């Protein structure tokens, strides 16, 4: 913190000023109580979803700035804007943040905002656990970002392979920050996976059979299955490495029979399913968006469901393709090559189903639809290069080259990020009650999309030309200069695109088209039958579903009044009480993580004891629900004009 040079000092000052600013604004407008009562202690899935969304967008900014710094460093040969060490730290935090602190909270934002509304439930199965999951993620992200200004960031890549990350080669606290922050957010993610699987299986509205569920909900089922089975592997890998570093065990050092390759193996048992965890919900979003804006039911619903579930199972048999060149035998490589290629089959089925849905539909090109259309081309290329990488012998050529970088950015940005942005635009009116401005949104879309191709197409070529990943600078005579420079221009265009999204959000808060109907897109699923934003109890009366796309069917047959509450039949609703404990638990986990980062074991264990105390306190709680009186429901429903 004290001896890290002007770049970090400037950041320190900026962070300090921002914090002072936030505290000042909250105090000036007397918003502390509001913040605590309405947000920090909330267990409402919609509010938790919004907090996930804000955090994800902030982290996208942080990870994006990392990306721009890297691209600036690589723009010209022999550049020395960043030192090698600083560059290592930046690509490590870029990868970790984008996957674990941007993509994950972004999909959880969508889970939280949409799933209970789509299945006709009043909240998730375990609202209290849901709040814990959020605060674990939040404080883990805080811990991870703290490394930036306090002690040094991790610098061994987001994969954190030993022996590079063992104490002998990596003394600093940076690696500990990584291990503990990812561990803490991982615990939260497992909780979310369990929570949503239970929610979808147990809390659907009467009549909503599994095969009548909206496809986004199905994609959450698939993603949750993968989360529950994959994240424990990561937790074990990180815990063992932490034991190696903090308590001097030898799981991954050769010294006493440890095996560093086992970490690589465990990491990718989680790591490859992880990329399906973040893409599956995006597939669900595309299915909703395409059906809504083509005004048709989705083509091949059952094949969509089957392909989602198939992807979630096959995802467990592909992980060794991350270390084809490790030296395992031909049989191992062949098996994992074939399994990796097989993922392309159900994925192709899905893409064709989206295209067939659009075919002869009345397509409206709204913002979500634009992002979906740009996704199709992107994913076609990303998928094709993925199959190229899955060919084990060819992978010996591509391994760790820029070809690989271009491939996974094309699937993760062109698939996951485009999907999540499409979902954000699509459900934004449901969250906040107004639409995002289309004109500014188009600027963002066009800039981001063009920027994407300008940035990553040259990187495929650079890969073939022999440029390896994680290089911090390169000599002038390699012939890589021009392509790298073009790539950097593309990165800045994407940055500009992101800026337009920010401007769009700020502009639309004031001038965005208000959504008074609750159904701005002429939607098909249950969430559009509610006012925007939905009341905190969601449904005054739980609907009884008889068909797929139930809301659409009701509209077609002029039966929408059936979902309106009737004053005489309303009953009081039991809702979970707010609780301060999830937030406090997050704080305690933060201090536990901080303690172990710096080997302050007393602080670490003391904070863990507080976590245990909070859990015991919860176990003794008897009344965690309260009844919303009929009068209040009547008042709320009347205010939205539904009575």
């Amino acid at each position, binding site marked *: 913190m004290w001896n890290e040079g002007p770049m970090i000092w400037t950041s320190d000052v900026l962070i300090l000023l921002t914090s002072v600013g936030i505290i000042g604004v909250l105090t000036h407008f007397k918003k502390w109580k509001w913040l605590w009562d309405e947000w920090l202690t909330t267990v409402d899935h919609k509010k938790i979803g919004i907090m996930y969304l804000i955090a994800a967008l902030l982290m996208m900014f942080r990870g994006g700035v990392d990306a721009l710094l890297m691209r600036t460093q690589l723009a010209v040969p022999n550049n020395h804007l960043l030192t090698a060490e600083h560059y290592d730290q930046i690509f490590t935090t870029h990868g970790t943040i984008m996957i674990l602190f941007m993509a994950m909270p972004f999909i959880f934002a969508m889970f939280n905002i949409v799933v209970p509304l789509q299945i006709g439930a009043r909240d998730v*199965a375990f609202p209290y656990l849901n709040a814990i999951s959020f605060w674990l993620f939040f404080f883990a992200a805080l811990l991870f970002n703290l490394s930036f200004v306090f002690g040094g960031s991790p610098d061994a890549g987001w994969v954190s392979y030993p022996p590079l990350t063992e104490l002998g080669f990596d003394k600093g606290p940076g690696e500990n920050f990584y291990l503990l922050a990812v561990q803490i957010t991982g615990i939260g993610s497992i909780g979310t996976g369990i929570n949503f699987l239970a929610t979808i*299986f147990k809390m659907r509205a009467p009549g909503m059979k599994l095969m009548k569920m909206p496809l986004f909900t199905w994609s959450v089922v698939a993603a949750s299955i993968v989360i529950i089975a994959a994240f424990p592997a990561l937790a074990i890998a990180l815990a063992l490495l932490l034991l190696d570093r903090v308590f001097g065990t030898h799981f991954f050092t050769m010294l006493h029979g440890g095996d560093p390759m086992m970490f690589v193996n465990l990491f990718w048992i989680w790591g490859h399913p992880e990329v399906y965890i973040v893409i599956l919900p995006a597939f669900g979003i595309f299915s909703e968006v395409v059906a809504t804006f083509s005004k048709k039911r989705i083509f091949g619903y059952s094949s969509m469901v089957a392909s989602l579930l198939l992807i979630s199972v096959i995802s467990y*048999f592909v992980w*060794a393709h991350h270390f084809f060149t490790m030296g*395992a035998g031909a049989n*191992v490589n062949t098996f994992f090559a074939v399994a990796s290629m097989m993922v392309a089959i159900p994925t192709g089925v899905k893409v064709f189903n989206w295209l067939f849905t659009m075919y002869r539909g009345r397509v409206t090109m709204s913002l979500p639809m634009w992002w979906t259309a740009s996704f199709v081309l992107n994913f076609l290329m990303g998928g094709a290069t993925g199959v190229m990488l899955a060919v084990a012998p060819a992978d010996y050529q591509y391994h760790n080259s820029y070809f690989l970088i271009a491939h996974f950015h094309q699937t993760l940005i062109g698939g996951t990020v485009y999907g999540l942005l499409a979902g954000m635009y699509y459900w934004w009116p449901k969250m906040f009650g107004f639409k995002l401005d289309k004109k500014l949104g188009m600027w963002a879309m066009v800039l981001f999309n063009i920027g994407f191709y300008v940035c990553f197409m040259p990187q495929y070529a650079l890969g073939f030309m022999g440029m390896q990943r994680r290089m911090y600078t390169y000599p002038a005579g390699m012939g890589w200069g021009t392509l790298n420079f073009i790539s950097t221009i593309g990165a800045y265009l994407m940055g500009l695109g992101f800026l337009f999204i920010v401007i769009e959000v700020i502009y639309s808060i004031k001038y965005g088209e208000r959504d008074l109907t609750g159904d701005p897109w002429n939607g098909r699923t249950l969430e559009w039958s509610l006012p925007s934003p939905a009341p905190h109890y969601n449904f005054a009366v739980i609907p009884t579903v008889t068909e797929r796309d139930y809301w659409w069917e009701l509209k077609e047959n002029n039966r929408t009044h059936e979902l309106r509450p009737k004053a005489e039949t309303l009953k009081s609703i039991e809702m979970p009480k707010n609780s301060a404990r999830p937030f406090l638990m997050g704080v305690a986990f933060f201090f536990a993580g901080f303690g172990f980062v710096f080997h302050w074991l007393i602080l670490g264990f003391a904070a863990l004891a507080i976590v245990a105390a909070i859990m015991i306190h919860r176990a003794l709680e008897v009344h965690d629900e309260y009844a919303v009186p009929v009068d209040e429901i009547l008042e709320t429903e009347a205010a939205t004009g539904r009575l």
Partner: protein
Amino acid sequence: MSAQTGTSVQQQTVTPRHKHKSGKYIVGYLLSLVLTGISFSLALTHSMSFQPLIVVLVILAAFQIVVQLFFFMHVTESDGPAYHAMGLVLGLFFTFAIAFMSVWIMGFNSIVS
């Protein structure tokens, strides 16, 4: 819960339908502690040679799973479709696939060293 219609699948919160006596939890807790204690002491004291030790540990681990499932997770109690049975089968499938394939992948290690 209000607005609860029809069968148990559609209940609005997952409320414990069965009253659990704390005694069952305590027995389960003690059993799992004992099983863990035995495994730890066997591993720490090197009381057996490597291969039989692994076999014994795997058997103890299997018992541990059974204890967890019956005493804490109430695997025999359910209302509505038996989703948890499907989940268990899928979980076992993943677990064994990952364990055996890891052994298979890491097999090269013995050849190298």
